[in-house]
């Protein structure tokens, strides 16, 4: 009886499959199969992701420019970062961009998911429309953004002028350019967040709302006390996905503003690209990448600690 329940609960907990019949040769065979099934994917990951990380660390310690390997200069590239104003502005922009886009896109995604989970006509059509921007490539999205936000001929400024408002300097003003990049990012991101939240909401039993209503909870209280706690796992997953996306934002900024005006929309990733492939200072660009990696690792560590604390309290 005990063996039975264990073999049932184990796969559900996601640890290891149930014990197999057979002895050592069967186990060896299974291990062999396991390695063989996993190997092709792992080889690609090792070669094209893990090895380049190691080699990026090595390159970052060299004065590599143009096509040469350059001399070993120790932490020279990192020392240069400290006094590089453009680097600090790019870092600040990356943090600011993340701090704005992550909570906003998640809140909008949750709001839309609640809306799309309620009774609506043509709900399927609405859902499709909300997710559709996700399908468009970053470059195409950014080019539409260029059209919409163009200071002179853009549709947005034409609209603003038509209603008697002031036309905004979306290209020449630093804050406006930053806002335009944020808006386009939200446009792309909201759909994915909505889908994940919707999947979470569909797991919430309607009886919970029924009993909350019987207890006299209004719509806000129902949202606050039933919906929000129950989509916690989705929130957790989305937080990590959105932070990664925001840290790595490239296409939209590269095409829409190129990091400008000046460095007011430059982020670590676009700045690293500029150094690595425009001015061709590979050593310096690699150092920038490593800084981005360290920030990501710190965030991951915090996330891990939080998720373990969660598992324990659950």
């Amino acid at each position, binding site marked *: 009886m005990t063996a039975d329940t264990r073999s049932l609960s184990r796969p559900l907990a996601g640890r290891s499959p149930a014990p197999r019949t057979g002895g050592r040769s069967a186990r060896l065979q299974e291990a062999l199969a*396991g390695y063989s099934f996993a190997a092709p994917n792992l080889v690609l990951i090792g070669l094209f992701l893990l090895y380049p990380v190691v080699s990026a660390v090595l390159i970052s310690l060299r004065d590599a420019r143009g096509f040469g390997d350059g001399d070993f200069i120790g932490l020279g590239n990192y020392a240069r970062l400290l006094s590089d104003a453009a680097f600090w502005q790019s870092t600040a922009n990356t943090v600011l961009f993340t701090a704005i886009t992550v909570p906003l896109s998640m809140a909008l995604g949750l709001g839309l998911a609640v809306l799309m989970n309620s009774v609506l006509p043509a709900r399927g059509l609405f859902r499709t*429309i909300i997710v559709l921007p996700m*399908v*468009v*490539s970053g470059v195409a999205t950014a080019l539409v953004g260029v059209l919409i936000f163009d200071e002179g001929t853009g549709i947005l400024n034409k609209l603003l002028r038509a209603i008697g408002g002031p036309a905004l300097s979306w290209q020449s003003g630093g804050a406006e350019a930053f806002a335009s990049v944020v808006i386009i990012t939200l446009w792309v991101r909201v759909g994915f967040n909505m*889908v994940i939240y919707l*999947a*979470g909401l569909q797991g919430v039993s309607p009886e919970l709302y029924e009993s909350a209503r019987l207890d006299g909870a209004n719509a806000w209280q129902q949202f606050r006390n039933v919906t929000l706690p129950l989509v916690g796992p989705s929130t957790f997953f989305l937080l990590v996905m959105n932070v990664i996306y925001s840290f790595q934002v490239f296409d939209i900024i590269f095409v829409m503003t190129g990091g400008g005006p000046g460095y007011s929309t430059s982020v670590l990733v676009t700045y690293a690209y500029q150094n*690595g492939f425009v001015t061709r200072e590979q050593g310096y660009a690699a150092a920038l990448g490593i800084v981005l990696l360290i920030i990501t690792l710190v965030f991951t560590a915090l996330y891990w600690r939080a998720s373990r604390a969660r598992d324990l309290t659950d």
Partner: protein
Amino acid sequence: MTTAPPLAVAAEARQIPQRRAGRRRGRGAYALRVVLAVVAAGLLLFPLYWMVVVAFSPRAELFSRELRLWPSTFTLDNFTRIFTEYPVVTWLGNSVVITVFVTVLTVVLNLMAGYAFARLRFRGRNVILLLALSTLMLPVQVIMVSQFQLVTRLGIYGTYWAVILPSAATAFGIFLSRQFIIGIPQEIIEAARVDGAGHVRVFLKIVLPLCKPLIAVLILLTAMSTWNDFAWPLIALKENYLFTLPIGLLFLRGQYTVDFNMIMAMALLATLPMVLLFLVFQRYFVQGFTRSGIK
């Protein structure tokens, strides 16, 4: 007398059974929700709508100072011009070839690895899985310089393979596959094993047929991210005739005279296949995520 009507209304309101009041409030809330949904959909649809409008508008329209929300005359001129002036068919072909290769390779390898990590026991399994999954947190741009040097040293820089192989190196699908396959009842697999089926047979005949929603999600996500990928092909390809559509779009924008009507026409061409793919697979989308335990 003047105060009577409000009083009367109030008295009447007190007598309305609570259910009626609730229903009326429900109707108000319903209307509000519809309005919100329409506004949200309108805002989210507008950039795509604008792409279509500009793609079918005559060139002069864009530069006029007046506000115009639809084309004055409908023209296919922009489409004929991109096809005659640029190797769009070649770029489209490149995008198709690269996307198909990457998608097939990635999905097959992800499913295999996902099965191994979910259902086969081997030494070091958890450590290896963790190491592979840690690459999910790795910003691609951290390694773009060293990846570039790697493909150069491998002698594949500037070829399809320089885009295909690094693009197929991803752990996201492994994670999704493992989570999904763990959800398949062990008894089904066990029964096949007892009947003498080997691991390959179990994978092909038992596991894969149960993974249709997973496979749909993997195909959709992989194809979309490959088709739309920009940063890496920009680095890995140099010859004009090997460009994918996103790089071609940037190329058009870099021309001496920037023609946004043509750019939007091409953006529309590049977007349509993904819209179709999405419409075909979207019913699996939520399902695939839900059953992978991500929600």
